[in-house]
């Protein structure tokens, strides 16, 4: 492992796939039987995945053009684009889209900035570094619902949550008896939800960015330091350009996962106070309101949004993949 990595210094970025590439042509002239015997192990996974991801999505696409509310089984039929028209016309649903974008952007940007800072810190050598690293990963390992439940009642709760409790303790330490006691979930629900998600996703960003920092070429960094490049200059002109890829990956994967966030919304506000994001809106429309047509149209909107992010992600991944295949 170590030797392989040092041969390909640029990256902890998926070099291994490349080593197979030259072997592929060997099979191309093979007989049909041979080709099928190669394919056979692949087929169960492929068929299974297509059957349970692509087909349902086509189903969603079809239903999105239908009027279909399971409470009114006699009124099922095609209605063209009116579900989509409703998505765009309904102020509440437009707000849902805006909220999804806001929440995703805030959480991705904040957790990435924090994650980068923490990664820079943990990348240095100090006492107990391994333990600190493990501790920093922990927030990501709390089951999302459990974390959200705990944040709601034990951290954000205005009368006995940890945040306000700490404020009281700090204020009374300075002799004040009237500490600020914000009720984040009621007055600024976006902030409350975002805080809990930033806490959860910063470790994810940190791990990605730490991998990036550790794949810098140590000799080059040392040589730069020796040549008198200051800390800021070597960060600005060497670390940042090297980290661009990792920042892109963190941002894109973070966005893909956070656009799909459901648990925190479900648990913290249940979509109240204009905090319904797209996945929660789909859930609500389909599961609680039984409006299958509208829910499907919303689902398709989520997919369109994700495809836009995913296209950028794929481009970054593909460029990494090809670069490593040289």
């Amino acid at each position: 492992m170590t030797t392989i990595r040092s041969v390909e210094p640029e990256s902890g970025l998926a070099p291994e796939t490349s080593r197979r590439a030259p072997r592929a042509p060997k099979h191309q002239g093979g007989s049909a039987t041979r080709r099928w015997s190669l394919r056979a192990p692949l087929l169960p996974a492929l068929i299974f995945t297509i059957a349970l991801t692509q087909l349902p999505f086509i189903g969603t696409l079809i239903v999105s053009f239908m009027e279909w509310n399971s409470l009114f089984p006699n009124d099922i039929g095609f209605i063209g684009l009116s579900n989509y028209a409703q998505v765009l016309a309904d102020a509440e649903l437009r707000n849902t889209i805006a909220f999804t974008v806001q929440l995703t952007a805030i959480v991705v940007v904040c957790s990435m900035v924090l994650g980068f800072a923490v990664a820079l810190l943990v990348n240095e050598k100090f006492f107990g570094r391994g333990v600190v690293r493990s501790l920093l990963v922990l927030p990501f390992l709390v089951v999302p619902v459990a974390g959200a439940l705990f944040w709601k009642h034990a951290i954000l709760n205005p009368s006995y949550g940890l945040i306000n409790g700490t404020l009281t303790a700090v204020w009374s330490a300075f002799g004040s008896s009237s500490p600020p006691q914000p009720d984040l979930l009621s007055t600024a629900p976006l902030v409350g939800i975002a805080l809990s998600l930033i806490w959860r996703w910063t470790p994810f960003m940190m791990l990605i960015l730490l991998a990036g920092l550790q794949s810098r070429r140590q000799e080059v960094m040392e040589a730069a330091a020796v040549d008198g490049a200051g800390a800021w200059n070597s960060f600005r002109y060497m670390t940042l350009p090297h980290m661009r890829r990792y920042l892109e990956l963190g941002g894109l994967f973070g966005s893909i996962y956070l656009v799909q966030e459901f648990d925190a919304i479900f648990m913290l506000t249940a979509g109240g106070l204009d905090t319904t994001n797209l996945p929660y809106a789909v859930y609500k429309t389909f599961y609680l309101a039984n409006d299958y047509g509208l829910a499907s149209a919303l689902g398709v909107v989520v997919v369109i949004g994700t495809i836009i992010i995913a296209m950028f992600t794929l481009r970054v991944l593909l460029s990494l993949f090809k670069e490593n295949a040289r």
Partner: protein
Amino acid sequence: MTTLTLQPRSRLQQRRTSSTRRRMLVGISAWIVALIAVAPIGWMVLTALHSETDAATNPPSLFAPLTLDGFRAFFGGAGISPWPPLLNSLTASLLSVILVLVLAFPAAFALSIRPVQKWRDVMFFFLTTKMLPIVAALLPLYLFAKAIGGLDNIFLLAVFYTVMNVPIAVWMLQSFLSEIPVELMEAAQLDGASLLTILRKVILPVATPGIAATALICFIFSWNDLLFARVLTGTAATTAPVFLTGFVSSQGLFLATVSAGALAVSLPVIAVGIAAQDRLVQGLTFGAVK
């Protein structure tokens, strides 16, 4: 290069004293950051070990006497027992991990060791399916489950978890299998070893840590799921995350119980996650980051 690095050694030595101070500073700030990050979890543990009255105070009572009442209330209290949901979660997660490996290992084999044509396209196909949001497929899957009478069925839930995890597993396993030196397998083949022997004697010993990491990560994703379980299960097959959403009552003091519950449900993931922490990001980024 060599002269470059050798020449200024002395200057580096001079800086050593300031660098130990710097290292101290970095160490202290890193520890502070880490303690802030785990503070909510520490608070969760502490609250779970407090009595209900001590748990809900403002300012927080850090040094209140410890008790297991919170856990007792969660596991055996007046409410519904959490054991069936916990067992359901375990069943669905383990079953799905097995299914994932059964499907993904041969696929990864066909994408790395004996690659099919256009194996790269297939890899990216798997990747794109994972980028499809679950909500976009939820309704048809629900209708399908309903049509075959599979609602509230833990086995069908495991099947859906399998779909969720197969792409990740294929990518992870593919990357682990490609690390096996080609020469090793060719040598075994020359010695006349059958495919099964090669699998057992050559591939498995090298790939086992990778397979284990894949299994652990898929386990976490299945265990964490709320959306599928919420929509597709009712009473009999309900999972631990769904149970957690339902057991909070708005009456009375319950913070210690909530904390005990959150902790109990998270413990398997924390254990599994620490075991797999080096591979965690690799799984989440489809092997793009190691």
